[in-house]
């Protein structure tokens, strides 16, 4: 039950796009059609599913203050947490590369669908953001971290698919010329964000 709550919380109440604005760059750039939006959204869920638990293990057994205690008492008070940015981004970049190679080898059809999006994901702030929030939230076990990763990925997927659907329709309406494109996408995201604020009322 705890895990279901965590999933709903990370997907809706603390939605990556609408409450933290993470991954906005690719969100705005790749949301012109629903088809590509679904491709990128699935790729983000997939990469979050892998990177958040890996970074959680890294955080718990290597980086956190006192995390190196398993190596012997000499290391018990080593604090490597200042290295976490560079470690997390290195893990993310290499896992994205690895995932790309594995998908290409074992499922060429999926690679064809996700292909161009996978390398983009290494620099998507939502991925690094999820790992940094995971560090801040101090989950008690790796299961919670995994659910948090999938939940935030799902929230991101939902957001990009919704905005892509709206943008497909709004192409045909008359809006002031200077607002066309990016300007309108900002306003739409703002309005959707207001709607998502409604989820704040849930007690979980």
């Amino acid at each position, binding site marked *: 039950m705890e895990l279901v709550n965590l999933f709903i919380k990370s997907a809706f109440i603390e939605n990556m796009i609408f409450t933290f604005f993470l991954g906005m760059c690719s969100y705005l750039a790749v949301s012109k059609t629903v088809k590509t939006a679904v491709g990128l959204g699935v790729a983000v869920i997939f990469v979050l599913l892998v990177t958040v638990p890996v970074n959680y293990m890294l955080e718990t057994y290597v980086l956190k203050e006192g995390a190196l205690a398993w190596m012997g008492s000499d290391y018990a008070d080593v604090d490597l947490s200042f290295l976490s940015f560079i470690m997390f981004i290195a893990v993310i970049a290499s896992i994205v590369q690895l995932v790309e190679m594995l998908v290409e080898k074992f499922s060429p059809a999926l690679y064809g669908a996700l292909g161009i999006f996978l390398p983009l994901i290494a620099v998507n702030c939502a991925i*690094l953001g999820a790992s940094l929030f995971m560090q*801040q939230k101090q989950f008690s076990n790796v299961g919670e971290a995994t659910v948090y990763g999938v939940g935030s990925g799902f929230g991101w997927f939902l957001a990009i698919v919704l905005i892509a659907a709206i943008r497909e329709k709004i192409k045909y309406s008359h809006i002031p010329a200077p607002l066309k494109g990016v300007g309108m996408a900002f306003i739409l995201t703002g309005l959707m964000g207001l709607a998502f604020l409604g989820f704040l009322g849930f007690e979980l």
Partner: protein
Amino acid sequence: MSEAKKESLFSKKNKQLISGPINKTNPVTIQVLGICSALAVTVQMDNALVMGIAVLSVVAIGNVIISSLRNFIPSRIRIIVQLVVAAALVICVDQILKAYVYDVSKQLSVFVGLIITNCIIMGRFEAFALGNKPWPSFLDGIGNGLGYSLVLVVVAFFKEVLGSGTITLPAIGKLTIVPESVYSFGYENNGLMLLPPSSLIIVALYIWVQKSRNPELIDK
């Protein structure tokens, strides 16, 4: 290279590198890069200023480093090299912020770390620093950093004045902008302005004004 052909340090072309990103090629509103942090840290003016300075220094110094290494970086692994340079600089910035402005660094929380994946940084490394000499790259970094900070400061100004009626400046503290007498007439702070979605709307209005004044920027 002969002495006569050498460009002066502040030639017209070099000045363009700074002034361009502030208006017509603004990284946030025109190129749509680095929006994540631009929207999230703008509830108070001091957060916006600190974030702007942090990004400015990372882009400028990072551009110089990448540009001096540009002939030694194999193009296959350039993304990871860029990430490592950015991450190293951001760690320095983070430690400095924690040491000198601890409160602000607490409020910025994960967004300092997210400078690493800020698209402005990667975009400038990739598009400018890899193909230009260190000095123009430095100016380009300063220009883009300033363009980014400008948007941040404008958004934070409206959000804070309309949302809480104050301006918070680093080292000076909270200044009250909306006078007491206005409140006694029944004026209320707009709580909506403190919520995240309002910054999207402000940026959209900023884009609207900017594109109306420069019609050549309008999307076809």
